[in-house]
């Protein structure tokens, strides 16, 4: 068993789960990834094409893990197009983790799209610790809802619940995760809010958490070249997502001018979110 996380492992894709027409989960065997903490990421090598940071998806088989990819750029499309039996390279898992304090009894988990990946690993940890999770899963429309079954399996028998919402109301509750969160925190109390997804959603989650004085943690995404604190591509203010994150708490996020505002492009220029 390799213990050095920097050492590249070459693994075979053993199973492919089609989540939506543009989202797939690729399952592989790798012990270090199996033991990944919620919020940690892998650098995934698609030979001769790209290497991209991916949050580690949970898998029910012992010793296995997965990545869930949305077809988008060159790297993610190449990974999306991999077939069962193809080889990919891994290094990591890198980064810090979501923390679940001993005193926590009930947490609110808010995810959008593939942002649910680290949150499901967290929910699984929470289930084992007998912490109640209220999971809010958002999508634009019914066809883009995925992970519902795996989420129900993770939280089963723990007095936890899953709330699915769609922007157009074609499935579950009509509205965004943010509007639903507003209602939930008004009616119930939570020990902590955990979020991952589009940055503007996370920014709104931070604002509501701050207004209601609830601790909050978010797992951030940025373009990375190295994943290990050398290239500087993933900086927000003076923090590096790869080395200081991917998880930041409410205090850190509130002090970041770049959070919800800008990111760095491949050449290092600042680009503003629209």
């Amino acid at each position, binding site marked *: 068993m390799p213990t*050095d996380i*920097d*050492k*590249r492992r*070459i693994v075979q894709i053993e199973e492919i789960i089609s989540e939506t027409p543009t989202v797939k989960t690729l399952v592989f065997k790798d012990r270090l990834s199996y033991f990944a903490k919620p919020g940690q990421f892998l*650098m995934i*090598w698609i*030979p*001769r*094409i*790209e*290497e*991209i940071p991916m949050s580690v998806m949970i898998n029910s088989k012992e010793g296995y893990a997965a990545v869930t990819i949305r077809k988008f750029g*060159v*790297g993610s499309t190449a990974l999306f197009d991999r077939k069962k039996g193809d*080889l990919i*390279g891994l*290094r990591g898992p890198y980064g810090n983790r979501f923390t679940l304090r001993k005193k926590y009894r009930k947490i609110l988990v808010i995810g959008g799209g593939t942002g649910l990946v680290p949150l499901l690993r967290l929910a699984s940890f929470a289930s084992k610790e007998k912490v109640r999770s209220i999971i809010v899963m958002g999508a634009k429309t019914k066809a883009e809802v995925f992970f519902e079954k795996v989420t129900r399996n993770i939280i089963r028998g723990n007095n936890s619940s899953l709330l699915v919402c769609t922007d157009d109301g074609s499935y579950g509750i009509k509205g965004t995760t943010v509007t639903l969160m507003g209602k939930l925190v008004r009616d119930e109390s939570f020990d902590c809010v955990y979020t991952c997804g589009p940055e503007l959603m996370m920014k709104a989650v931070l604002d509501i958490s701050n207004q209601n004085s609830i601790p909050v943690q978010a797992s951030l995404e940025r373009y990375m*070249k*190295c*994943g*290990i*604190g*050398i*290239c*500087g*591509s993933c*900086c927000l*203010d*003076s923090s*590096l997502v790869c*080395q200081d994150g991917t998880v930041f708490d409410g205090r850190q996020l509130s002090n970041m001018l770049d959070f919800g505002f800008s990111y*760095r*492009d*491949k*050449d*290092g*220029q*600042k680009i503003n979110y629209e």
Partner: protein
Amino acid sequence: MSIEDKNNNLSVELDNIHLRNPTMLASGILGISQSIFERLFNENIGAIVTKSISVDPMKGYPNPTVIPLGCGSYLNAVGLSNPGLHAFSKELSQNKNIPIVISLVGSSEKEFSRMVKGFDSLNILGYEINLSCPHVSKMGMEVGDDPEAVSKIVNTVRMNTNKPISVKVGVGSIDVVELARIAIDAGANMITAINTLRAMSIDVETMMPILSNRIGGLSGSAIKPIGIRCVYEISKQLQVPVIGCGGVSSWRDVIEYMMAGASAVQIGSVLGSSGPRIFNKITQDLKKYVEKKRIANISEIIGIAHRY
């Protein structure tokens, strides 16, 4: 900003630049953000060299661009990605007291003169000219291997600034001492040695080169003895300050480079395992060393190995 202690026994002089300690950030590492520069400064760094900046923004090569090889060594072919002259002057425009050296890269005299004209009014210490990046065509080492081009470029930068200029040399086809001499004769004030060394890594399972550019530069612990040799030879032949670079991960490595003849020492790859706090750790350790050895100022050990 921390006020420098009058009895600072780690301060060094590089030409007319005063550094509170000999540690510097090597070019190519974390070098694009003013907020990160401030964080490094708070970690007690002596000076910061930015990523190599070109006139136009460069996206660099596709990933993989950085490979950790283990044992403190790394292979990279980032491809000189940088935000370019315009965006980077804006980034540094609010800089007041962070000691920043801008690394410059380009293909022609015209490009270098445009950059120096653009940057010269900023609060910066000076320039480092990258003539040794081993993996980008028509830039870096491809210029460094051409004595005439080196001479013209260094001279152009000299004509456009009164600030100190260091030329970063590497192990290419011209002898490193010869290259350093050409740079100094053309008007450079000091030499930075060395850059990464051309290297490659192939994955045996997929049977493919790992770097997208196939060939890159080796950095980290593996190249330290080569860096020490180059600094030793350059400082023996030329009466100018030399900045050591290559494989520094602890106070011992800093001291070793200084004993070989370096007036300051750049640190880079080790940030991949230790993060920015390594600068504070190394400065604290250097302080312990000079106190233990009863050295009044660390600059007393510069080139001490030349006695033997």
